[in-house]
């Protein structure tokens, strides 16, 4: 096996867990398998592993229950934060919204805190429940982003405003991957904070929260936080490690 071909097999084997990769590559080297057979063998094992992972409910929850729908809603929330910031910089817009500089700043901080809370908890759930299927959750998060970016038509705000939620979400994913089991007390505190902020956003009818109450789906963004409460301290709630 040439080093180029071997590196191809090694690259494919990176999709396996560390110990399994070690054993499989060693077996292939020992059996002096041809590159085609080695590659087919590794890809076959990777495919079997992925299929087995998807027999569990957690990757489905992370990808289709959190990553995809939350990215759609969080783009709207990101845009709201950007609008509040823009308004704060423009006295005419502030006046048109019947806000003072102080209340405008409060609204911006409030919306940013809510965006961070929603994004971080969603990211944490995706990180802790996906793990080895994280690539699918990532694709399902980015797909709506790319779609919305391609149709973005707001001149006063740059396109990047849609993606403000990604920073706290990625932070949450990293935390979820690194330390997937949250203790009950911080989980409850987090869920209560996010829920109270969300309820306050409805009751004040804060501008640009996709304001028509009947169409406001942002309540769904508190669900990841309550999932963390429901699964706090339970190792069974996290996906299998490498």
């Amino acid at each position, binding site marked *: 096996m040439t080093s180029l071909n071997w590196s191809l097999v090694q690259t494919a084997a990176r999709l396996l867990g560390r110990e399994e990769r070690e054993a499989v590559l*060693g077996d292939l080297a020992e059996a002096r398998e041809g590159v085609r057979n080695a590659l087919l063998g590794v890809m*076959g094992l990777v495919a079997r592993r992925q299929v087995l992972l998807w027999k569990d409910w957690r990757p489905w929850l992370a990808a289709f229950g959190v990553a995809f729908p939350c990215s759609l809603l969080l783009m709207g929330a990101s845009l709201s934060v950007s609008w509040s910031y823009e308004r704060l910089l423009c006295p005419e817009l502030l006046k048109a919204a019947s806000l003072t500089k102080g209340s405008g700043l409060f609204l911006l901080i409030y919306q940013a805190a809510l965006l961070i809370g929603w994004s971080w908890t969603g990211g944490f759930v995706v990180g802790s429940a996906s793990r080895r299927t994280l690539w699918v959750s990532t694709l399902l998060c980015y797909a709506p982003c790319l779609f919305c970016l391609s149709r973005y038509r707001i001149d006063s705000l740059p396109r990047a405003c849609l993606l403000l939620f990604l920073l706290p979400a990625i932070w949450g994913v990293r935390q979820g991957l690194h330390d997937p089991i949250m203790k009950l007390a911080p989980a409850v505190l987090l869920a209560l904070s996010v829920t109270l902020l969300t309820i306050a956003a409805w009751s004040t009818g804060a501008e640009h929260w996709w304001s028509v109450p009947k169409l406001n789906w942002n309540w769904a963004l508190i669900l990841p936080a309550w999932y963390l409460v429901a699964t706090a301290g339970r190792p069974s709630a996290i996906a299998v490690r490498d």
Partner: protein
Amino acid sequence: MLGEFEYLIITAAAGLGDAAYGAAIREEIAATTGRKCSIGALYTTIDRLEAKGFVKTWMGEATPQRGGRAKRMVHVTPKGVQAAKNFYDAVVGVSRGASWVAGKTENAT
């Protein structure tokens, strides 16, 4: 009850004893059955057997022959031995009246 491939792996591993690991088990199965088994089928079945408590695995030593990579060693547990014995007994029992079993002829009824 074990599946056929599970039985083959347990039997090959038991026969190899302390030298039972992925590549050796694959070679043993290929040599005795004439069928090549894929590395994917082997390792997912070993995982299943381990989850059922029929085998125990651990990472063994690395050899230069393997490019310095460690082996995944396999040891058949007493529970695995019993499961294999039950499978074997079932196969022998159900085969008793079959025409291809020694002492029988095609016309035997």
